[in-house]
Each structure stands twice: as C-alpha cells, then as structure tokens.
C-alpha cells in the first residue's frame, strides 16, 4: 500500500511572532527583503543534503513556521562557510540566521535526537566554560560517547595516525584565570534576558 500523508498547513500550524523574533536578532534584519531567488541554496555546498533548502528555510521563517524550521536538519548542516551570505543579492546574512535558529532550537530542545551536531555545540560550550580552551581530542571523545560510540571504532586508523604524528593532546588545555572568565560569562548570562538594560 502506498502511504499517504497530508501536507497541507493550517493557520494554527504557524507560530505567530516567530519571524519577528528572528528578524529582531542582530544580523537577521534583512530577511524581510528575501526574493526567494535561490542563490543561497545554489551556492551552499551542503544544500544537497538538506531537507529544506536554505531558501525554503527563509520562506518558512518569514511565514512563522517555527516547528517545521526548528525540526529540519538544514540548520545543523550549515558549515558556516558564509558563501550564501556573501552572494545574497539582498545582503541577507543567512549564516547569521542559521545561527539564530540553532540557538532557538537548542534553547527549546527541539532538534533531531542523537544528532551529533547540536551535541557537539553543547559539549564545546561546556568545555570552554570549564577550561577556557578546547582540547580537540577530548571534545571528540565526549562527542562519540554521547552520540554514536560505535562510530569511534570505525576511525581507529585515523586516531592511530594522529597519535603517530604527535597531534593528539590528552592533557586538557586550560587558561590560568578561569575565575575571571567565569565572572565574565555569568555577568553576560545574567543580563541576557533583557539586553536593553545597561548599567
């Protein structure tokens, strides 16, 4: 039997105000003037793997289809190469919009499960918060553990190579004034909710 699915969207599917929220993020203002030309998708090296092309993401955001956008793989496939941003004939900073969408997805916890990219982002975030610096090896190790430790087995040869060439650091890199950094980050965090209030 052929499986069929209704694809129609109702007004109730829209999350009113989502477009406005995204366009209010620094760097995302220009989204309003998108003409759906497809240059972003055409230049994007990863659009060929996306469930919605970057152009479609722009259309979905502008029409308040929040759930559809945040559930899509597209934002997580963006490699931040900025090709779309540079090429866009309306100077829409598409990469920045992708960032804004990633932030929303992480904040609201709507992203594909066991999908390594958001996990990487969060692990990275935590490691920097703790140490002030990144030790790539440890980061990758944690990533594998959290997502697909099986895959780690597949790349043993690569690991060996890196070990041979002396590129694997196993001692965590740290900054000295970690308290200073922590103080900064907490100050930023506390004011994050209402950024307009300045001391």
């Amino acid at each position: 039997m052929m499986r069929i699915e209704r694809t129609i969207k109702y007004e109730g599917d829209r999350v009113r105000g989502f477009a406005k929220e995204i366009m209010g993020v620094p760097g995302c203002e220009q989204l309003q003037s998108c003409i759906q030309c497809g240059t972003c998708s055409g230049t994007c090296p990863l659009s060929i793997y996306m469930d919605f092309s970057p152009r479609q993401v722009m259309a979905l955001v502008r029409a308040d289809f929040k759930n559809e956008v945040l559930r899509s793989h597209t934002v997580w496939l963006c490699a931040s190469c900025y090709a779309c941003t540079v090429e866009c004939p309306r100077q829409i900073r598409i990469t920045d919009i992708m960032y804004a969408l990633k932030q929303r997805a992480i904040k609201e916890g709507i992203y594909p499960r066991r999908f390594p990219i958001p996990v990487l982002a969060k692990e990275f975030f935590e490691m920097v918060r703790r140490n002030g610096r990144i030790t790539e090896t440890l980061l990758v190790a944690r990533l594998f553990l959290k997502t697909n430790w099986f895959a780690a087995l597949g790349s043993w040869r690569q690991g060996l190579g890196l070990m041979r060439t002396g590129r694997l650091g196993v001692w965590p890199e740290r900054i000295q004034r970690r308290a200073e950094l922590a103080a900064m980050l907490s100050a930023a965090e506390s004011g994050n909710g209402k950024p307009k209030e300045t001391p």
Partner: protein
Amino acid sequence: MKTNQSNGDVRIGFYICHCGHNIAGMVDCAAVAQYMAKLPGVVVSRDYKYMCSDPGQELIRQDIREHQLNRVVVASCSPLLHEHTFRKAVAAGGLNPFYFQMVNIREHDSWVHSDRAAATAKAKALGNAAVRRVRFHRALETTRVAIQPDVLVVGGGIAGIHAALTLANAGKKVFLVEREPSIGGHMAQFDKTFPTLDCAACILTPKMSAVRAHENITLWSYSEVAKVEGYVGNYTVTVKRKPRYVNEELCVGCLECIAGCVFKEGKFPDEFNVGLSKRKPIYIPFPQAVPPVVVIDPERCLQVRTGKCKKTCLEACADRKAIDFTQKEELVEIKVGNIIVATGFKLFDAKRIPQYGYGLYPNVVTAIELERLVNSSGPTAGEIVLRDGRPPKSVGIILCVGSRDVKTNRWCSRTCCMHSMKLAQLVREHTEADVTVFYMDIRAPGKGYEEFYDKSLKEGIQFVRGRVAEVTDWALAPEEEGKLVIRVEDTLAGFVRRMPMDMIVLAAGMEPQEDAQQVRRLFNMSCGTEGWFLEKHPKLAPVSTFTDGVFIAGCCQGPKDIPDSVAQAGAAAAEAMALIDKGYIEQEPNTAYIVEADCCGCKSCVPLCPYKAIAFEEAKQKARINEALCKGCGTCVAACPSGSIRQNLFEDEEIFSEIEGVLAYV
C-alpha cells in the same frame, strides 16, 4: 486688472484643502481653518475637500468678489504642483495672481508625520507664516521672452532619432549630436526585436536614412556637447566636433580606402561587433552607418599617431580626396531654445560577477554578443557557434546579470526577460540546441509580451526558476566532462541542480552611462541615486527635467525597451514643440531689482551674478540689474550690504514675516 497696493487694508481669504483623505487624514483641517479665521486680516477661512477642483477654484473666485478679498492663501499640496492653478484662479477672480501664497501641508506635513496633533500644529504655523507674508505681496507682471525655435537633440540612438525626426517633420530645425561615428545606438546591433520578431535593421535603417536626408536636421556625428549656457528658449551650446580625418561631404562610402589601408587584415576589436571581429584603423562602423562615411581611429592609425605611414588610403581614395589628415578638433556654437537629452545607457560589465566566468570561459558570452552572432551581417554570418566553430547542443541563458542585486545594481533592467526569450527563440531557430532560461521572475508586462512568453514555452524552451549560483568547468558527473556546469537551485522543484551547457549567455543589465554625472552637470539636470537622469515628476512630467527647456528621452532616464524609448522621444519632442509654438517663455517675476537711492556703489554684487545681469554704471556710481537676464536666484540680494537690492516675490519683509509666522506658538 485690479491692483491693490494698500497694505493697510488687507482682506485675506484662507483655504485649506482636505485633498480627500491625504491631508484631512492627518491634519484637523476644520481646526486649522478656525485658527486662521482669528488671525489679523483674515476675512474668510474655509476648509474644502478638493481645492484644485473646479468648484474649489470657483470658491476662491466667488469669495474674492463677495468679500472683496485682496489676498489669497491656499494650504494644500506642494507649490511645485499647483501654485500655477491657484494663481490662475486668483486672476480669474479679478486679482493680480501674485497676491497669492501657497502653503505645502501635504508633502511637507500630512504625508511625512504620524502624530495628528503635531501635524495640525505645523499646518497652523505654516498657515500663519503665509498669512503674515501675503500681506507684503505686491502686484507683479510676468515678462515674456521670445523663444529660439531650434532644438538640440543629444544622442543618436532610437530615442534621439525619433525625437529629431518628429520635430523636423513638424518643421523645426534640429541639431542631432552623436558621440559615435554613426547614429543608430544599441538598436543597430540587434538582429530581431521582440515581441514581433521584425528585423531591427529593417525598421531602424529607414529612420536613420531619413535623418540624413531631412532638410531640417543637421547631423553631427563623432561630436560631443562641450558647453551649455543660457536658459529655456535661449541656450547657447558649444559642440565639439572630433576630427574624423575624413571629409564627410566628399566621402561617398565606397570603402576603397579600407581595402587600401596598409594594414592588410583587421587587427583591432570591432566595437559594433563587441570585439567578436576585427577592424582596421580606417573603417566604417557598420554597413548601414549614417553618415555612410568612413572614420579613422586616431589611436590606431599610423599616420595620425606617428606621421609615418605610406598613406595608401589616400591613393585608394584617389581624386575624391576625402581623406584629410589636417583635420583638427572644431568647436561650433549654436543657439537653440530646447534640448532633448537621449544619451542612452551602458551595458553592465559581466566580468564584475566572477562566478559566471565571463572572460574566463570563452563560451560564456553576453546577450549582445549572441545578438551579433545570430545576425546575418555579424562576424559569423548568422551562425551561432562556439569559439571552436562547433554548434552548441545546449545553451543556458542567465537573467538578471548585475540587476536586482544590492551589490551591483538594485534595479530591474526591464528588457532582459523579453530580450532573452527572443534570443532563446532565435537560438532554437538557428540551431538544434536545447535552450534553458534561468530566471527569478519573468517580467513580460508589455503589449503582446505575455503572449511572447507563452510562445517561448510552446517552442520547448526550458525555464528554470532560480538565480544561478555559479558557472564552473569542473565535472562531478560523466555528462559534465568538457562542459560548463551551472549550479542552481530549481526553486520550483525545490532542489539544487547541476546542469551542463555548451554555451552560456549572460543577460547583462543596463547601467547609466559612465559620464552621466558630467552630462547631468552640463545640462543642469538631476540624477537619481542610481545615476539615471531624474524626471520632473515620475508620473505627470516623465520627460521634463527640473531645468525648463531640457527634456529627457530613452534609457538615460531609466532602463526601457524600444517602444517605450520611442514613446518618450515623441513625448519629449511634443513638450519642446509646445514651448516653441507658444512662441515665448513666460518668466516668473522673481527677479532682483535695485532701489537706486540706497545703492552705495560698492560693486560687491557685480561679480556674484552668474548671468552677468548686474552692471555698474560708472556715471551714476550705482549698480544696475538687467531684469531680462536675471534668473531670480537672489544671491546678490543676500549679499548687498546696503540692502538696496531686493527680490520680487522674495522680499526681505516677506521672509522675515514668514520666519515670525512659523515660530508663532499655536
């Protein structure tokens, strides 16, 4: 005409226009009328739906009679729009038309503010100023200046040609000045024209010949306007005639000299064929060139450059003796009453978008190059071929090259959709190739244009909606080997496609001419921010400029196709004729004058006048203003240390009272 000099007994009528909802929506018109009614001197104060309508004007006429008004103030739109209308109404009521003052509460108030209270207060303040000012108005007479009936047309493209012919056919003498050696412009390069597919040469050449043959047209090709002085009705124009090194009167266009040139083969890129063929230093731009005479390229000709050449061209010309190496640049002065500027456009340089590979990949060509390829008198005699001579099996046409892009040109070039569909049809006609058009939106809004789009679809031309991201020569699939590959999102299908092509055609858009800014200054015109010449009003005065007697036609005003260019040219010609046939120019009486008794003879005004209207009378030791020459800028008025220079319509008292009025608390 009844005049009323006495300032003591002013009886002012004040009228505020609702302009439908345009003003009344933001300004409380009734409140303004009530406020004005209380001001000293105001006898009648009314608000009315449309003051510019016949009943509105009638209201003024009636009030002048019934209430013995001797001053009228109308608060409505910009004086640049309707001052004339209301002055006429005032005159019709039996009053000198200059006993009138207009208040701009639409463009300067209701349309630009969003706070009703503030907008109403502003309207009151501006009204107050006008009421105070109009008290000082005096009866004035317009002066009439005879108009020089000849017309200068600058630019010999289709717009300039059409304007010149229209005027000439009406019996006006026309000077047509063209920078290139031949008239014809861009249209001469086209093979066919959309949407009828009639041959461009077949419809243009007769008009070009008509220009040459017309007794009322003086054609100066290879010439440029160097200087413009004067004003509407009386321009003095200096035209620079570049040396062609060929006597136009003597040359019969036999082209023997070209064959006789010491260069045996063409060596230099041929401008008319956009570099697709080569020409010699002596050449004729194209077979149908008008004037049909040769020209010598001073940068390439050995004789002109070095003085050392066997001059075999002279031998070829023999006893016609048309070739003349002694020619020098010449400056000619002409007097005209009107000027039509039709200087056209420049094609966008496709190299500015490197991702399309123009200049890098030989088989990426521009639309105008394809136009020459498909033309039977073009470099390939009408064969559409790749650089290696093979016919293409697949052709991709990319639209909006340089257009609709904030990084290059924001505007839509308006003609490329239709132009590309025409080329697509011609490619289908001439070759077996598959043609794909890559577009963002197809814009086919002219008569017969949508039908042309339909025809293109029916002929099997493919349309892919998506702005092409890049053209490359690297293959990721076997069918891509040796081809140019377009990467584009097919936005209607919703995925990215890679499409191999043999030939890629770039529909480069239109830009203002490189020297548009200089030309603009030359003729005292304005430019929009993009560089297109600015019309006086986008709807109601589309071919007029802010300088009276200077009109614009064709693509110098903005991208447009041939029908629109021709229509504009006709309109410009009609505007010029309207002035000529009236016979005189009515001058706004805003001239400066000297109260001789107060003049101290310091002469500081004399050098200020750009029109040399101020002379110094040594005998009296007083300055004197020639009001016929004065254009009414008022610079001398502001400069006069003794206050003896005054300006009609802009008297000091009038302005001081206006200042007082706008600052009045309301």
